[in-house]
């Protein structure tokens, strides 16, 4: 019995389900993809931390980026860390207005739960971060999140 079937030609593996599999993967990646909304003008290598909490609601987050200007802006802006909000460089004094403006765009019901995400390059100085924190306190935006990568925190020293 077995011998007989072996002698026959092996049937070809059907590839008819291949598109289905690929489509499944495609839809997965389509759904998880987050297109970057703003172009970064500063270097932004976030530090690592292990005791992180995930931020749940994307619509309740206000982003502030801090870091050295990227390569193409160095000539104009120098080497010192800068703040980037809304696709442009900003002074610390502008942060408060920016946060209030963003808050005003949000529906009333979620304003109280808004978090300010500080995306700060790990080589930036604390002075600028302290200035931003002071501005945030002035406009009573007290919930902040030091956004980090998940990882070993001791790698930050290098």
């Amino acid at each position: 019995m077995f011998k007989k079937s072996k002698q026959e030609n092996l049937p070809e593996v059907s590839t008819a389900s291949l598109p289905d599999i690929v489509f499944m993967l495609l839809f997965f990646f389509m759904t998880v993809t987050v297109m970057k909304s703003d172009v970064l003008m500063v270097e932004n290598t976030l530090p690592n931390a292990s005791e992180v909490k995930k931020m749940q609601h994307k619509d309740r987050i206000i982003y502030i980026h801090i870091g050295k200007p990227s390569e193409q802006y160095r000539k104009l802006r120098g080497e010192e860390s800068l703040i980037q909000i809304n696709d442009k460089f900003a002074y610390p004094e502008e942060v408060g207005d920016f946060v209030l403006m963003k808050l005003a765009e949000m529906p009333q019901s979620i304003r109280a739960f808004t978090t300010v995400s500080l995306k700060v390059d790990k080589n930036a100085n604390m002075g600028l971060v302290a200035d931003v924190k002071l501005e945030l306190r002035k406009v009573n935006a007290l919930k902040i999140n030091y956004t980090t990568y998940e990882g070993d925190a001791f790698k930050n020293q290098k």
Partner: protein
Amino acid sequence: MSRRGAPPEVNAGSMADIAFLLLIFFLVTTTIETDAGLDRMLPPMETDGTIIDIRQKNIFTVNINKENLLLVEEQLTDLKDLRALTIAFLDNGGALSGTPEYCSYCKGERNPKSSDNPTKAIVSLKNDRETKYGVYITVQNELVGAYNDLRNRESLRLFKMKYTDMESQYLNSETSMAIKASLKEKLGQIKAMYPLLLSEVETVFN
């Protein structure tokens, strides 16, 4: 009207190619963004200038200088030792048994020279303007880690569940309201035992 023979089949062989092309595009552009980080509440702007008296022994000073060196309680310390030192300070429970400040759940050394009770113990963090952000985050991470370790310990003892796990379950939007309510109560209970008292404002010693 019936057709003669079977209708011609559309060749679906290239479908896989097209799908692959799209798949590769999305694979390349995807950055599975994980917006995770350390949550922190900033202190509100004080306008009335109230001064709160805190006993010196209940304050744990952590100072990072501009050379990114760490000074814990006036001692030069390695970053790796910070968590253990913080736990020892918070969990000390130095108040004598019988006094209202006595800490029944503390497992520390009960050194009368260190903090009385975790609810009284304050960590005071200071940094220079030239401190590197990366180091600052490491220190913040270790301080939060110390609190999380203690909270996990008590949470495992009381509820047989880690505090951090309860918290992530609570924050998960798929958790039902009934479970959330019970979790909130438990979280509150643990938070009351080890409240996160981290001060970054100026403390004056006198």
